[in-house]
């Protein structure tokens, strides 16, 4: 089968990929094959070791190359499906409720990722009115009077 090799420089948990130039070569599927974790044999070429990402048209999926092992003149690529990029469009169209977000957030919600240090900072002020104990008055309450 034909497979297309890429050099992916994006982090694994990024929805989009930055794929460099492509290289399409022939490979042989090791059977039995788990579509999500396939192993493919290709003819050994040291240049192939610089690629870390694969698209398999027959499976319609993108894969991370988890391991490359040399077996004589063969290079065995052990891969795992990249579900984010494979289903990128569907994921983007799907509804979700965000737990944390860089773009849509509520600043007044308590954030557990902040660190509480010991101690408090104090600020104080005073209102202008003063109860002047020294200038007070006596109140005499009596019965009578007109």
């Amino acid at each position, binding site marked *: 089968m034909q497979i297309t090799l890429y050099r992916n420089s994006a982090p694994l*948990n*990024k*929805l989009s990929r*930055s794929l*460099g130039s492509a290289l399409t070569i022939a490979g042989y599927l090791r059977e039995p094959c788990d579509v*999500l974790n396939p192993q493919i044999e290709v003819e050994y070429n040291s240049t192939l070791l610089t690629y870390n990402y694969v698209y398999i048209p027959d499976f319609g999926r993108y894969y991370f190359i988890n391991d490359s092992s040399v077996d004589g003149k063969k290079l065995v690529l052990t891969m795992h499906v990249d*579900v*984010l990029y*494979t*289903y990128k469009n*569907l994921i*983007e*169209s*799907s*509804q*979700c*409720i*965000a*737990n*944390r977000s*860089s*773009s*849509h*957030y*509520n*600043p*007044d*919600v*308590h*954030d557990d*990722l902040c*660190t*509480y*240090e*010991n101690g*408090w*900072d*104090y*600020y*104080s*002020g005073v*209102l*202008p*009115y*003063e*109860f*002047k*104990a020294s*200038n*007070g*008055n*006596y*109140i*005499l*309450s*009596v*019965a*009578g*009077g*007109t």
Partner: protein
Amino acid sequence: MSIIKTLTDESGVYDVEIVIESDGWSGTPLVANSADDHFQFDIWGEINVYSGGYEGYTFTCEPDPTNYGYCALSSGDRGSIIGMSLEHMGMAIDSDSEPAFQAVCCNPRWSYSSSWGAKETDENLRIECDDVSVHKLKLTINDGETTTESFYNDEELGRYFQYASNVGIIFFRCRYVGDGTAKWRARIKTDLPIFATDADLLEYCQSGGTVTDKILNLEGDPEEEYENQFKFHYVKNIYGHNTQNASSYTGYRNYRFYPASKRMCFYRVNPRENSPFTLRLMGYDSGVSVKSAPVYADPLTDDDKYTTHSGSPEMLYLHKSISFGSNDYYSKFRFSTDLPVYGSESQARDYINNVIDERSAENWNDISRAYSETFDPNYGDPDTGNDNGVNGQSYVKGARLWVMESTDLNAFFDDIFNDVNINDILSGCQLFGQSAISCIMGVMYLPIDVDDVATVYSTKQTIKLGSWACPTAQGRYVQNNNKIIECGSFFVARVYNDFRDYEMKLSLDLPYIGTIETSIGRFLGKTLSIKYAVDITTGGCTAHIYADSIEMESYDGFMGSVRPLQALDQISHLNSVMSIVGSIGGRETGMINTATESFAGVATGSIGGSSKGGFNVPSSGVGLGGAIDLSAGAITDLYSLGQAVKDKPIAVRGSYAGCLGLFGCQKIHIRVQQPRIYRAPNLQQIAGFPSGVGQRVGMFSGFLSVISFQMVDGFTGTADELQEIYGILKQGIYI
């Protein structure tokens, strides 16, 4: 302040969007009086170029962190009023080397005539960078394969960046081939007023800085207003840039709910990617049917600011369709509003029908604060606050309250303890009991000027005991106890503008009441004011605490210091003091007892447990373990005790009694205790902030982790893949 500019060159109109954001102008005209006067202009932002052939190139421009842009006037420009014009700001989008537009970040050096801007001198208005060698901007080019950073000219991949080396002009040039879009999002932080055109800047300068209506980054008016049960919403800073005079589009428009309606919102008719898109305003028509209307922007006048739209919703336009011959002409607008904006009519309808709330709006982050800080006027009648009553009782006849100084009080007792007067006193007081003392209902000291809380007769009168007139004693009698003391106010400012503000604690030292700790959330962003009401018959007092004139809390205390006249008074007085002191002591004793019991539990449990484990058959079978368990329980108690102390950084206490309040504070002291909370500066970037927003994944950017996720129809992968997707989204992804 933000604007959108549509750029054109000889080959046609290009879909280039330039958004400029500013932190706002301070409002004070800046006059350069010496060559050393500096004015700030920081610019940072990014340029995104999209085309059919490329997924996107990003130019990130940011100031050199140690040498950001300051401008200074040359010595010949002293006395000049200065500002900033954006007329020549733009971006090259043609395929040739020369840019079609230049980005001008401060007054360019082009030829101002001597009449331009110079109010007090005839010198040219001209700004130059004082030392261009340090004003280097960093440029990062990331085309997906390589990242290049440079501090000066850089040519690569058909795009290049140039920093003009001798004038206060910064160029961003982008050679661009092909169809697509380019977006420049720049942020300008400046203390200069910004104008759209040179003409507007000129008018401002020639007026000596008094004509400010063309200033784009002018903050302030209008504010939201409330009237009866209506609630105004604003759509302000509408700015359209096209071939017409842009200034005529700058204005405000406030809207308000219909009486029977609670909700109103915008929605986009066509996707954001389609430019221009149309916004429609949706609301209830007299609470009967949902209607929507296109949004227009007729040239707005002051009369439009607070227009009452009591008719049909069709009046609520913001979109303008102007006919030029046979063609409709559409303008682009950018504005800020506290009305939610939704991406579709169905979402807007869901909002109107209370199916979703404002959190789903595209502009939730912009409007959330406005919602959180306003009262919903639909609950009850509008609360204008400050409806304290007045004690209208008259104290003139029957039982009188006399305001006396100490010399007056001494004279009074001299009168009644004088043997010469005894028969007259008994005669005058016989109606009230067996002795003259029965006529005296109390003597109390109030530590305030009684005129602050009562209307007191202005001149001294002879005091009467029963029907007996004192020969010498005089005082001023109270007419009404009808005043309230306004102690002052202060503004409780938000510090962080996020949840950390609510972690602060607010305590108040209230004279004659005590120290109380209250929820700061009730007062954040509001003016806290305090009033004292004093009952001069009992000496009781109440502190009323308000947030923006709305009473939030009240606390009672005792201000009067009673002077016992009989043994019975003394006993009663003593009991009241003991009662209050006892309650305070009881609280503390309770804590001490609790702690003691905890410690006792540790000791007894440990020893007992060990003893049992060592010498007796343990009934529970745990032996030493029992001791450990008890210790753990005690540790928990100690931890709770410690937490209780930690959570109350200010000790609180209850009311005062007797004369003790006189030794307390005599002014209201406010203390804000701010916890030390550290938030990593890159937290938003790498882990986001708490959200709760529900919408499509594609609407988010940056980091996103989800609480729940619903895959759209059409997914053809396996169950394991779906589970893995959900797992990754819960952990968090970058979009």
